[in-house]
């Protein structure tokens, strides 16, 4: 998995490529927690994300809870396969997906 971060003022855009699974999810969690302070808008770009497991969902949920207190979080460019994961888990009701 590769993580690319772009901070524009209080907006943080994070491009995630590859797999977000049991092994890589802790890495994303650490990157977000290290960078999220003071951010009012967090954008997660899933254009190059191929695979998402429940470990990744937990990180997203944690990030969403944090951003609910300090601003907003948007997930964009979700492919069909990962969208299905969001649908069956009910995450479409929890996340803001564009």
């Amino acid at each position, binding site marked *: 998995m590769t993580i690319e971060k772009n901070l524009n003022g209080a907006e943080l855009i994070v491009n995630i490529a590859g797999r977000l*699974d*049991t092994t890589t999810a802790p890495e994303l969690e650490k990157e977000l927690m290290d960078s999220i302070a003071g951010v009012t808008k967090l954008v997660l770009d899933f254009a190059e994300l191929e695979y998402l*497991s*429940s470990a990744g*969902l*937990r990180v997203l949920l944690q990030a969403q809870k944090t951003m609910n207190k300090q601003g907003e979080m948007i997930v964009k460019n979700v492919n069909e*396969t990962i969208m299905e*994961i969001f649908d069956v*888990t009910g995450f479409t009701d929890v996340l803001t997906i564009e």
Partner: protein
Amino acid sequence: MEAINSNNKLIRKIILSMFGGSLAAMITTAIALMADTILAGVFFDKLAIAAVAVGTPIINIFQALTQSIINGASIKMNISAGKGESQEVQDSFSVAVFFTVIIGLIFAALGFTLADKLVDVFGGSPEIAGRAVWYLRGATGCIIFGNINLFMYKTLALFGEQKAILRSSLLAVVFNIVFSFIFVKIFPANMAIAGLGMGTWFGGIVSIVSSCLTLKKYGISFKIKFRSVKFAKVAHFVSHGIASSGNALADGVVSGVVNNVIVSGFNASGVLALSVFTAVKSVATFATAIIQAVNLSVAPLFGIMYGSRDRNGILRSYRESVRLAIIALGICAVVIMACSPILAKVYDMTGMADFYIGMAICMVFYLPLTALLRITTQFFESIEKVGIGFLYSAIPDSLIFPILLAILVPVFKYNGIWIAYSFNAIPFIIVLYILRSLKNRKISLSYDRIFCLDGDIRDNVPKIDISIKSDNRDVSFISEQVYTFLENEGVDKKTAHATALCLEELSADFVEHTVGEDTQKGENIIMDIKLFSDSDQLRTIIRNEAPMYNPLDFESDSDKLAKMGVKLAQKLAHSINYSYVYKMNIITIVIDKNKE
């Protein structure tokens, strides 16, 4: 990370972990079988020993007649466990016990009422006939409880409870002695010997209770659903279990023929020759407890692999079991040969070259060839090839052995006995191989043909067959490998994703709950992962050797976050089944192809 591509590790590890307990249990069982003979000598006299010797084969024959039900039920249970059909395992268990009791009662009644006539037929001379009759009457309960006890052991073996088998068999021996003592003391003198027989099955009842308490935690009980009592089911059990029973009966008949051939082949010294052969045979028979232990250890595994249509697992289990038997028998043979002077003294055959030669030939040739035959018999029975299993069990020692004996003994005397006894498997194997080659019109046969694997198993080679450590890095790695592999095989993205995801979620859940942070064993817990491609489905089987843990067993609302992955897998998969057998957690995940 290292994915361990050595696929024997889990199977070898499990068989080895079962073997110690199985061996101890088989040795204890062998002692239990000798108990009445020993107790007859302790409580009574030599004539009582002879009376027990007359009565015992009669009980064994009645037991053999009813054993087909439990043998067949055991095979069915092993296969059902492999398929994850827990209810079928329980139903087969309870139905088999029910019918074994019913039919056992009938035979026990026959044995009790016809005892005097049976003793007459089986060589009860006047000075021992009275005692033999009473011993037989006392022991008729063994027809029921002896078989139920044996069935308990086979069922415990299915769940990998070899220590429980050892505990139960020890209890059987101890309480046999206790009850025998009590009954011998309280019964009138003329029928006191019946107490020995009764002590055996009372000890068996204690053993059954002990076994039941262990089986309860796996949800196995005597509770019977009468709607599952179908004669077709019992007929299925009998048809699949009759090979073992038939062989036991054939052995009993043939032993009389063999004895006569030996005695007549040596003319004046026939009785001496028979005693030498009996002595060598008894030592070899004791050593075959190792083969019985291997079979007890591995029979459930054959059935489990067959039930899940795992071709590689079936063949690996066979290979590992033969390997274990040969190594263990080799060690045993060395020990026995080192002790042969002591054995010669015990049997009063010191200085008899023929005894030593017989022992050497049996240890080197008879034991490994017998191991091959018996494990192969067990293998064929476990994969429902009952007819072939019966051929392997009956033809060499019940047909070829006496024929070879009749040909060789007049010419080669003692050496003729050892050659016939040790090598009777070889003509059978050669002839069978030739016949199968002719049938298949090929000289060299594949393993699939040799082991008569059906098409749906023969062709069911897993696309992925790998063992990994129970470690999250390995789990993620395998999930990625599976995803990439399936994409390269032309499987649509959604199906590939669902398969890889379900595999990861269930494996990760296993790792979390069966390999804790504080356990030192984490590195040694191996997971087998196999992926099969059926026509319209992908089937993933995950097996790990760990304490029982069912990832599918949780309250739907509790700990939502912790079980999110399992719930996700349940929604993506066509079905997910769990079973715990043979000390293995087994998860079978089925994904429909062409989800796009």
